[in-house]
């Protein structure tokens, strides 16, 4: 349980490096009320999402909080997570016919990217992975949590899930209408990591990577990283393989 949820949180956090140390004040906590509503994930009902999240991490009691903002876009066959600096992006594309998922680690400033072999992702179980990516929480982990109440989150009805095992406390706030985890938090010992939906993007200022954008990228195969990172012409590869999610977990 701890491992599954931790993986989910890592997934949420994986697209960005926590580069700044900023002290933040805790916002008002949502008001919890008890709930008897059942829970299910249905991506068929999931609307497209364009959102901004904030991930915060600190040692309790929180004094020096590291935080990072990131964008999340979801469509029926494309999911993208990009850091707010627009320097790193994680892009998953699903083949609607074969359900194959291809994953790209993109460096938008360099117009470079690494393609992950679809078979590797398939072997990892891409059906579950796609659901996890699309909802920002794995169905397996949330199914083992208890619904402890209801709340409002950015005006949406939301369910609150909690669990505690081996002194690890987890909480998820789930918005059924959006089929989306609005908040995922974990307290492990004295360390807390919280990823929380900040806003749903209503303007077109920040857009996901389009097919027109994508063809401008130089994409290399994941298998070629080992042959390329020593090359001066491919210094960007070294930058990419030290991508967010690699350093701070």
């Amino acid at each position: 349980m701890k491992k599954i949820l931790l993986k989910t949180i890592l997934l949420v956090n994986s697209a960005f490096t926590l580069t700044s140390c900023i002290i933040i004040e805790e916002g008002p906590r949502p008001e919890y009320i008890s709930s008897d509503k059942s829970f299910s994930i249905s991506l068929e009902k999931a609307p497209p999402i364009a959102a901004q999240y904030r991930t915060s991490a600190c040692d309790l009691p929180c004094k020096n909080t590291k935080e990072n903002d990131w964008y999340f876009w979801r469509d029926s066959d494309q999911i993208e997570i990009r850091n707010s600096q627009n320097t790193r992006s994680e892009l998953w594309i699903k083949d609607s016919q074969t359900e194959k998922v291809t994953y790209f680690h993109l460096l938008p400033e360099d117009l470079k990217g690494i393609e992950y072999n679809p078979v590797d992702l398939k072997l990892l179980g891409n059906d579950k992975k796609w659901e996890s990516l699309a909802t920002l929480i794995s169905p397996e982990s949330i199914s083992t949590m208890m619904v402890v109440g209801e709340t409002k989150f950015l005006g949406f009805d939301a369910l609150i899930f909690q669990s505690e095992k081996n002194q690890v406390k987890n909480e998820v706030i789930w918005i059924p209408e959006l089929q989306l985890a609005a908040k995922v938090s974990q307290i492990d010992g004295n360390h807390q990591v919280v990823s929380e939906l900040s806003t749903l993007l209503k303007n077109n200022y920040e857009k996901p990577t389009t097919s027109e954008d994508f063809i401008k990228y130089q994409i290399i195969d994941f298998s070629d990283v080992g042959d390329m990172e020593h090359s001066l012409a491919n210094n960007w590869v070294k930058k990419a393989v030290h991508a967010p999610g690699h350093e701070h977990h």
Partner: protein
Amino acid sequence: MQSLFIRPRNIKVQAYLSAFSLALSAPIISAATLPDHMSNTWYSAGQQALEEAKKNHSNNRKAKNVILIVGDGMGVSTVTAARILEGQLNNKDGEKNSLSFEKFPHLALSKTYSANQQTSDSAPTMTAMVTGVKTNDGVLSASQAILNGETDAAKLNTHRLETILEMAEKKGLKTGVISTARITHATPAATYAHTSTRDWETNKDIPANSQIKDIASQLIDNFGENAIGDGIEVVFGGGRSKFIPITLVDPEDSSRTGERTDGRNLTTEWKNKFAGEYIWNKAQFDAINLNQGEPVLGLFERSHMEFEADRKNDVGGEPSLAEMTSKAIDLLENKKGFFLMIEAGRIDHGHHAGNAYRALTDTIELSNAVKIAREKTNSKDTLIIVTADHSHTFTIAGYPKRGNPILGKVIGPGSDTPTLAADNMPYTTLSYANGLGYHFLETGGETVYAEPIQAGRFTDLTSIDTTDEGFHQEALVPLSSETHAGEDVAIFASGPKSHLFQGVKEQNYIFHVMHDAFDY
């Protein structure tokens, strides 16, 4: 001490045998003179090997066919570990097992440094093997006057090196190139393309200020009318996206397209220029009509073909390296002869990912391919060379007992529990000097790159099944990808002029033996 007493008696036996030539069989002699059953077995096996070695004669004939088989990254430790793994997978004595090419009669060591690298990449090493000349990192079949990244096409052309495949084409022989990597990847590309930069595989990769042709287009443009020979007859591998335009949806993956931005569809050009056939899946591969004898371009993946361990999961279906080898020889066989290059390209990728399982199972598949190649050709007229372009930082360490699983933890002789290191934790027989280090993923392979670097003694392996295909071996120096290594690699050879492989040779010597065998 025991061996000190036994050895003089063995020498006497050898002298005795020598005097009476081959009249007496080795097992009878050893059984009569040695003290225990195990010594008998070792001794008689040694005698048998000696007699077999005495039967080897130099074959100085001209080679009708030459087959060069390259295990990318297949260093000596990889060969040893794969040999043991193959035996153990077949419930046989792993240590005594031999891969097919280890039974070849002639062997040399190859010095793999390049013109400017102590430890090389695949571009200059393959250039050395197919042109006879060492060159710089990243450079394909051009001399060391060319540096990686050179954009001047005229300068490149001045320093272009003719390859053994091109020579064979000029002489009217049939030719073939097979790889489980992209057919535009460094090793296969060096046989037919000339460029300063191995990564310029499709036109999109070429800098705007350069007129140098991308590697994929050279497979078409360098051959046929107004160029060399009549075209390569057999091309099997991956790398489809480098050949088809960005406007064309991939036949195996509808969410993806080709990569070419110059509007060329090289698969169509291949068919038109060489009156050939283009295929992309296993069913089409199986349906190739050998009687028609038309050239075949088979591109079975957008990028690299699958690891052998994962091939069963491929959407479109792929032939194995052994199947491609068998089909290629059927297609190439003719009176004048052929040159065929076969690469097991993903041994290297398994090692880079620190996943010995995939590196070794791909090595075993290379052995299967060699076995078929030897069976389908005549050793009197076909020179087969099996070698590697470079090694990896892959080691076989500790003092595991005989029969210990090669992918397992070290368990010493007389023990049933793992040997503990000074940190009181077990360790595996196989490990890497550098790389990402220990990982255990459900599916393994290259997904390891998505994980943090965990070099050194990261975790207690006591409860970990290190023989699982998802296990990634421990590594000492933390790097984001395991690297090549600079020690010599082996050259195994059979057939005409194979006896010229002896001692420690420069890697470019391989070309000179092939050239001599063809009598060019």
